């Protein structure tokens, strides 16, 4: 049974570590908006080449 005495503090520390992580994520604003981020994880990370958009719009007009 005495192994519990070692495991108990470890489990506590682990739990507190997760709790702190949760506090951080809340304060960081990660729960402020839940709809768009849940979708944006599906978006590919491929970058679009930057181009000078200004020139395009003036051309069209």
């Amino acid at each position: 049974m005495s192994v519990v005495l070692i495991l108990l503090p470890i489990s506590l520390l682990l739990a507190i570590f997760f709790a702190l992580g949760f506090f951080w994520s809340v304060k960081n604003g990660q729960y402020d908006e839940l709809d768009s981020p849940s979708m944006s994880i599906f978006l590919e990370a491929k970058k679009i080449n930057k181009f000078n958009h200004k020139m395009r719009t003036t051309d069209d007009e």
Partner: protein
Amino acid sequence: MELRQAYKHPPCHHCGLPSLYLVSKKILEKECHFCCHGCLTVYEFIHEMKLSNYYDLKKSADSTENNPIDAETLKQKKSSYSYIDSDVFKKQYAFKEEKGTQSMLFFVKGVHCLACVWIFEKIKEMVPHVIDSSLFLNRSLAKITIEEGTAFQDVLLLINKFGYSAHPVKEDKEAAFYQKKENQKILLKLGVAGFCTAQIMMNSVALYVGAEGFWAILFNRLNCLFILPIVFYSAIPFYETSYQSIKQKSISLDIPIVLALLLGTMHGFFKVFTGTGDGYFDTLSTLIFLLLGSRYFLRRMQQSNMDHLSWTSFLKNDKITLLSKEGEKSVIHMDLLKKGDVVFVSPGEIIPVDGMIKEGSSQISNSLLTGESFPIKVKSGDKIFSGSTNISSPLIIEAHAVKEDSQLGKMILELQQGWGAKSSVVTFSDKMAKYLVKSILFLAFVLFIYFGFIQQNMSEGFSRILSIIIISCPCALGLAVPLSMILSLKGALKKGIIVKSDMALQKLSEAKNVFFDKTGTLTFGQIAVSKWEGESSPEIKKIILGLEENSHHVVALALKDDIGRSNIKKDERLLIEDIKEIPGLGVEGRIGEDFYELQAASFDKANKNFYYSKIVLLKNKKFVCSIILSDKIRPQAHEVISFLQKIKMNLFILSGDRSQSVKYLGEELSIQKKRIFSSLSPFEKKEMIQSFNNTVMIGDGANDALALQASDVGIVVSGGLYAGIQAADIYLTKAGVRPIGEIFIHAKKTIQLIKINTFFSLFYNILGVSFALLGKVNPLWAAIFMPIQALSVFSYTLFFARKNL
């Protein structure tokens, strides 16, 4: 296939877009055009399966939103963002988040899915000076951050090119920030409660399986440690609401919860530190955790509904065309308008200022302000008020009063002052809580007497009293009410009904008097052909079409719209000479030898029915046919009215329109004569409403916004004006009045669900209390009994909601 110029293409019969590559085919004797073979195939299939009703439904859905953007409006919008980078405007709308950047929020119409999010995320990669761009899908808001000193205009033009229309919005930064912080605080409390509950659960399991001696003491004391954050931090919202209700001398559901938590904790500490047993820590912590969780989600749900409401319908014209002294047109935002400015109002736009007409004559409709369905003629020199709609031709107006000083502005201001003035209601669950608390106190008193004086065993007495209080905590009720509300609001949203608050549903279920606005609510709010009398052959229709071809008069538009639907081919139009429009009377013209006149007939004096206007066609001064025009009743109005009468509502009509037309409508819908009121000003409407109890007002616009606010439940039909939507509790996003019936049923079902849950909860309470009275309740018993309670209520609520809400 044939390629023609864009504006000549008739809309595709299936999808409504201009049919660039014309595909034509005769279907059911009709010549139909399509934009592609795909649409043709679908159209044929839909007709084959006898599903052509689809197109009628689609038409009514399209008329309110998502009109396909045609090239013309896009072009207009293109040049119209020039105002956005002016310093005055930026000062009001832009805000700074980090040094060297500027951000602005935009309400974007028509965003709904992943693809839209993707496009907005990519904007920052496409335009060099954009630092950040993101879309908040749940609120239809986009935030664009650019380098300081650069322009927002190109970004907006780009967004426009993607087919979205973006309107800059001013968010109440302070309120939004406060709301965000508040949400975070509650979430933190929820997190802490969850963390502690998990720990306490683990320790309690050890106790239940039979920890003894040193281990029992250790786990019990750990429990004592972990309940502290819950008592002193997580449960704060419960203390606050309890304190509030005690201050108001009423009893809310939170009071028994707080009682159970505090007494339970003290009882537990006493037991643990005297070594006489275990506490109810696991039960109490689970309780607080679940209650907090359900309340948090209800709160989020309500907030997102509120957001929907506040941005969904903007005043259609936040952009105003300004005319400089030199006669040059420029587009500015509504907020930049000043007194003395000269504005240009095209037909179809809402007049943004109070002022005088400098140039032009036109017809204006006051239907938004007064409910008057027939348009009024105005000419240069006339005074004109904001909120009217310009109908036939462009007007140039000098502004005498703008924004808050204008009619519309005053109305909106008054509404804003009345914000939150709506009386709150005592909810059903609060009523139950009252009885609960009273009976618990009574029981406790009886036990106290019994054990104190008869048995002379006070320690046993206290133990039983405490277990009664803990076990009778209305946990099931506290959980079920928010959960039912979340599901109910979600269900309503799915039906296209946005409900601002859960109170609205409660009040709706108690409604007795239902007030309708006429124009725009029960009727379409615009004149349409209702009947042809006499000859109505295609030839006659062609003649009328020819005569009215170039007229923008409302009557002409109604006629053209009606004839347009009867499939007369454009190429076969008649050649009509000498067309002349006689203001106030009609049009005349000549076809070969025959002289035609189309004019307003004098009213049928015998009937004294001013509800409609009558148009007659004369051929060589001889009567050919007459057409009756009226503000048509919405097709579902009869259905909704008879439904409401069936559920025994007292129905009223409150209209600003003339009495004859209102009376006619009342008869048509069989509403009692004494309950029909006409020629009411917005203020009179409000007073009418205030003189009744349990009122529901159903309206559309500014002229009933005050009434909407004064009523217990204000319902705004789709397409309503911004002011009206602000004042309302419920907003219908689908066209028509049919959802009104649905929301009444929905509210009834929701309250029914809550009542059933209350019954469950009471049943459990009685069961629990009787066990406690017998002294059978111990922590293990509570730990099993409470979750069963919560689970059964949860699953029943989910089951009911899936079936009924």
